[in-house]
C-alpha cells in the first residue's frame, strides 16, 4: 500500500440476490485527489460509492479507510459524508438547520454549531438564504446547501453521487468549477460518481471507468483519452475510430488485416502474427485528403455522410466501403481546403505512431 492511499478496495464483490452488481474491485483512492467513477447506468459505480459510505455491505473483500478495514462499520460511525443525486435535503428544516444537522448529531454546542455553519454558508455564498425553507431555493442554491451540509464537518473524504444531473447545462458547468475549486482549496478527497464524460474529465485528477461491475481502466483523463486500454473504453468515450482484424507480417513490420484494408502497426505494438487485435486512432489524429497522400501507409477510402459544427470544431462522419462509420474531428479552418459535401469521396489516413492496440475485453 502506498503512503498516500486513503481508501483501498481489496477484492470487493457486491451481490444483490443472484445479481452481481460489483465483481472483484481492486483499486485505491489517493489522499487529496479528485477521483471520478464513470460508467453507464447499472455498471456498479453507485454501488461502489454506497459501499464506501457504508450504505451497502460488501458481499466479499475488504474496504480500508486510512488502512483500517471499515466493512462492519455502520454508516453513522464512518466519516464518509455523501451528496445524493436527489440532494436529500431535509424539507422540514431550513437552510441553516440543514447545514447544522451533522454538527448537532456530533454533539457540537449551539454557539459553535452556528459559527461553523455560518462559515460554510458564507463560503458557499448562501448566507442570505439561511432562514429560508428548502422549497424556496433554486436548483443551484440547493446544490450549495447540500455541499455545505456535507462539508461543514470538514471530512477527509466527500462522496458525490451524480449531484449535478438535475441542473441545466449552463449551471452544470458553473457548479463544476465550484466543485473543482472547493476540492483544490480544502484538499478533501472527492469521489465523484457520474455517467457524464464531460463532468468526469473536466474535474477529476483520475478517472475510473466501470462496466458491468468491473473496472475497465483507471488513469488521468489524458491517459484514458489518448490511450483507451480496452475496446469498451474506446467505444464509451466515442472519440476514437476502431479497426479489428488479424495480425500478419507486412513489409518488414506488422499489419492488421481489417475489412477496411491492411493497416500498419507501430513497430512496438507487441503483437505476434496470428493474434486478433483492435486498433484505435483518435478522431483528432485521423486526417483526410482528396488524393492518397504520398508516403502514407494507413489509408482508408471513405465517403462523407454527415457533418457537425460545434463551436470552433467540426466533426465529419464518414463511411468506409464496408459500411463502417468513422469520424474525424478538426478545427474549422483545417477543413477549409477540402470538398466536404455529402457523398464526397475522400481518403482517411493516419500515422502508425498515432494508433495503438486495445484489449478486446
Amino acid at each position, binding site marked *: 500500500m502506498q503512503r498516500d492511499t486513503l481508501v483501498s478496495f481489496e477484492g470487493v464483490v457486491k451481490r444483490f440476490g443472484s445479481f452481481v452488481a460489483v465483481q472483484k474491485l481492486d483499486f485505491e483512492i489517493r489522499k487529496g485527489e479528485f477521483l471520478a467513477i464513470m460508467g453507464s447506468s447499472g455498471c456498479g459505480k453507485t454501488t461502489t460509492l454506497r459501499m464506501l459510505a457504508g450504505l451497502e455491505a460488501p458481499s466479499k473483500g475488504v474496504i480500508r479507510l486510512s488502512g483500517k478495514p471499515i466493512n462492519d462499520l455502520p454508516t*453513522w460511525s464512518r466519516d464518509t459524508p455523501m451528496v445524493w443525486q436527489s440532494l436529500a435535503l*431535509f424539507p422540514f428544516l431550513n437552510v441553516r438547520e440543514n447545514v447544522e444537522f*451533522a454538527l448537532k448529531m456530533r454533539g457540537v454546542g449551539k454557539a459553535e454549531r452556528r459559527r461553523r455553519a455560518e462559515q460554510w454558508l458564507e463560503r458557499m455564498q448562501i448566507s442570505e438564504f439561511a432562514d429560508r425553507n428548502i422549497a424556496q431555493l433554486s436548483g443551484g442554491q440547493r446544490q450549495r446547501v447540500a455541499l455545505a451540509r456535507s462539508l461543514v464537518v470538514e471530512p477527509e473524504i466527500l462522496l458525490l453521487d451524480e449531484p449535478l444531473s438535475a441542473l441545466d447545462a449552463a449551471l452544470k458547468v458553473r457548479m463544476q468549477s465550484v466543485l473543482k475549486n472547493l476540492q483544490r482549496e480544502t484538499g478533501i478527497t472527492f469521489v465523484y460518481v457520474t455517467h457524464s464524460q464531460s463532468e468526469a474529465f473536466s474535474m477529476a485528477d483520475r478517472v475510473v471507468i466501470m462496466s458491468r461491475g468491473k473496472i475497465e481502466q483507471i488513469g488521468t483523463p489524458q491517459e484514458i483519452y489518448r490511450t483507451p486500454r480496452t475496446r469498451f473504453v474506446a467505444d464509451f468515450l466515442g472519440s476514437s475510430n476502431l479497426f479489428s482484424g488479424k495480425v500478419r507480417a507486412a513489409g518488414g513490420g506488422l499489419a492488421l488485416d481489417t475489412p477496411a484494408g491492411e493497416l500498419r502497426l507501430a513497430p512496438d505494438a507487441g503483437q505476434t502474427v496470428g493474434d486478433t487485435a483492435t486498433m484505435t486512432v483518435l478522431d483528432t489524429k485521423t486526417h483526410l485528403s482528396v488524393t492518397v497522400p504520398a508516403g502514407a501507409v494507413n489509408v482508408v477510402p471513405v465517403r462523407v455522410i454527415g457533418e457537425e459544427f460545434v463551436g470552433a470544431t467540426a466533426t465529419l462522419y464518414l463511411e468506409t466501403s464496408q459500411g463502417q462509420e468513422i469520424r474525424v474531428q478538426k478545427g474549422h479552418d483545417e477543413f477549409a481546403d477540402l470538398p466536404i459535401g455529402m457523398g464526397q469521396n475522400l481518403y482517411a489516413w493516419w500515422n502508425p505512431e498515432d494508433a495503438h492496440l486495445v484489449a478486446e475485453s
Partner: protein
Amino acid sequence: MRRPITLYGLTFSLPLLVWQILFFVFPLLFLVALSFWTVKNFAMRPDFDTVNWTTMYGRAVFWQAYGTTFVLATAASFLTSVLAFPAAYAIAFKLSDTARRWAVFLMVIPFFTSYLVRVYSWQIFLSDSGIINVTLGWVGLGPLPLLNTVGATMIGYLTLSFPLVVLLQLFSLVFIDRTLIEAAHNMRCGRLRTVFAVIIPSARTGLVIAALFCFILSFGDFVSPIYLGGGEPTTLSILITDTTKSGQQWPRAAVIALTMIATLLAVAFVAVKFAYKGKSK
C-alpha cells in the same frame, strides 16, 4: 387558478351537494333553531329563548362532562398515536412488500364487525367474572376491577380508532423519501435518533391527521364510556342521552351537541393548521 363550472362537472358534483344540504346543513340549522325552543309540560314549543344556553352553560355538571370528554379524547389521541406508531413504523420499514400488504389487510378486518359487537366482546374479557379475572383467580389473584373504569373506556377508544390510526400513520410513513433516512444515518444520526429527527418530522402531517381522527371518534363516542366505562365519569355523549330522557329536554341536548360540534371544528382547524405548518409556498 379558477376554472369555469361546466355542466359536466355539475352533473357529478350536484347530487353530493344536494345530499349534503339535505342531510347535513338542514339538520344542523334545525339543531341551532331547536336550541332556542322551550319545553313546557314535557312538550316542545318553537320559540326564541336563550334559556337553554344559559341553563346548560350555568351548570357545573355540563362543564365537568365537557372537561372529562376533552381530557379523555385527548388522552386517547396520544395513547393511540404512541401505541400505533411502532406498529406503523414496523409495517412501513421492516416488512417485505408482500407482508406489508397482509398487514394492511389485517388492519382493515376489524372494520368488518360492528364496533358495538367488539365493545361487548371486551366485556367478556373485562367483567368481574370475565376471562381475565377468572384466569387471575386460578393463580390466586384478583378479581381486579376492570370493567366500568376509565381504563376500560380507554380500551374502547383504542378499539375504535387503533386500526384507522395505524393505517393513516402507515400511509404517511411509506411516502417518506428513503434517501432522507440514509442521509441522516450518513450524518451520524443513529437509528432511534433518526426516528425523532427525520421520520416523525417528515410524516408530521399524517401523524397529526391520524391523531385528529382518533380525537374526533373518541370525543363523540357513546358506546365505550357507557358499556365499558359504566357511565362514570359522565361524558358529553352520555349527558345528551340523559338530558333527552329527563323531561324531553331536546333543546338542551341541542346546546350540548352544538357545543361539541364547535369544539370539534376548532380542534380540527388547529390540528390541520399545525399539520401543514410551513408547508405552504
